[in-house]
């Protein structure tokens, strides 16, 4: 398996990368950590005429506190995020999601921006971004824009990124104090793609659920918010009855999961429901509510 012929450029700045994309349009492809793109090249499922390697752009490799939000440069590796005390302490859901991604050898190269832009249906980061209300910062030649996670993931392997655009930063808003969280998945082996998974947040006030966010991954073309389940929880007492209610909404929301050799659509629906109930139980415990 050898990649097809392509030209290669390694710009030193975002502006230079955006200019290259502007000049080559849809014929060019961005190379971040390469942990998804390199297999696609090896199998010749991707045939760009130009590969624009973002690996030499030092300005895209950071994790920092930016006015209370956490700003993660698109080229920060998963290992960088995994070892970031800032992410672990302030966005434990994102930290935990990182540990579920691939293997250490993959996380050493794979980047935050790469996973978001790849938008694999079974990927953890897009679901985490949606659960946490992340914002994507995007650069193009002569301009910049921001897109909410809810508007960024359009379908399988498809995002709001236009051909001339570069994802530069993922911003995680502050998690409200006392918010419980959980991210769970089932895979054949630790580090494999998830058969199904969920990322949830939950807040409890005066013994009642004040707000909830439930996102599924691996059961739809893109991360799926279970709004019916979120709404059903508000005002309920945290506990098995509430979790079962949300789990049923998750089962319904997962309308047409993939059937493949790893799992049938029905099994994926089943997993979605079971994992949502487990995740909410865990989130409630972390939120300090007895359940």
């Amino acid at each position, binding site marked *: 398996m*050898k990649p097809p012929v*392509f*030209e290669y450029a390694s710009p030193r700045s975002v502006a230079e990368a955006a200019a290259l994309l502007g000049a080559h349009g849809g014929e060019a492809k961005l190379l971040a950590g390469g942990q998804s793109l390199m*297999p696609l090249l090896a199998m*010749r499922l991707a045939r760009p*005429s130009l590969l624009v390697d973002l690996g030499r752009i030092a300005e895209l490799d950071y994790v920092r506190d930016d006015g209370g939000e956490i700003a993660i440069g698109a080229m920060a590796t998963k290992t960088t995020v995994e070892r970031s005390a800032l992410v672990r302490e302030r966005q434990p859901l994102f930290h935990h999601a990182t540990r579920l991604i691939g293997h*250490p050898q*993959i996380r050493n190269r794979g980047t935050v921006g790469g996973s978001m832009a790849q938008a694999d249906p079974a990927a953890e980061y897009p679901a985490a971004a949606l659960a946490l209300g992340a914002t994507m910062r995007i650069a193009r030649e002569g301009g910049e824009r921001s897109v909410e996670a809810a508007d960024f993931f359009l379908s399988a392997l498809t995002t709001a990124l236009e051909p001339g655009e570069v994802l530069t930063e993922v911003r995680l808003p502050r998690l409200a104090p006392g918010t419980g969280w959980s991210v769970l998945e089932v895979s054949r082996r630790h580090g494999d793609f998830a058969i199904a998974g969920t990322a949830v947040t939950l807040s409890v006030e005066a013994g009642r659920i004040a707000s909830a966010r439930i996102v599924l991954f691996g059961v739809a073309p893109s991360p799926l918010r279970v709004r019916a389940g979120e709404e059903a929880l508000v005002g309920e007492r945290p506990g098995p009855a509430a979790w079962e209610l949300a789990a049923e909404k998750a089962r319904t929301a997962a309308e047409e999961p993939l059937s493949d050799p790893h799992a049938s659509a029905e099994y994926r629906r089943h997993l979605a429901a079971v994992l949502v109930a487990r995740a909410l139980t865990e989130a409630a415990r972390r939120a300090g509510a007895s359940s």
Partner: protein
Amino acid sequence: MTRSPAEERPSAAARRIRVTVNGLAHEALVEPRTTLADFLRGDLGLGGTHLGCEHGVCGACTILLEGRTVRACLMLAVQADGRRLTTIEGLGHEGELHPIQQAFVEEHGLQCGFCTPGFVMSVHELLELHPDPSDEEIREFLGGNLCRCTGYKAILRSVRLAARRLREARAPGAAPAEEA
């Protein structure tokens, strides 16, 4: 067999790269599409980096990039320009195996040996990060390396033995490691 236009493109211009592999500086011209694994094996003649799946699943081609494990089939040689690499050839010498390699020999951590270079490199990083790893940490860290012979039990024993020996070698008052 029909050929797509992409395959009819002429080779892209070769690029000059400089890499340090196992302590030796190399300068070479490589085509952009050359993977790092093919460069190490074909251009530098370092055949110890094995290629199993060539798309990032099996872990046989695991090497160290600046001391961290990476899959050499999921990198282009041009991406390694200016970087420091270590392959299995850089760990031990003939007649003087690295303690990790020695542990694999003694605990039968290999049968056919095809996956072994990748395992040894992964274990190298694992023991740097966790000198006294739990079985769960070993299993999780080596989850990205496939072995079809051993059933992994002997590999686990090999890692435990290597970890103990490396800890003893590093402990204060211990005889200095021969590698140092």
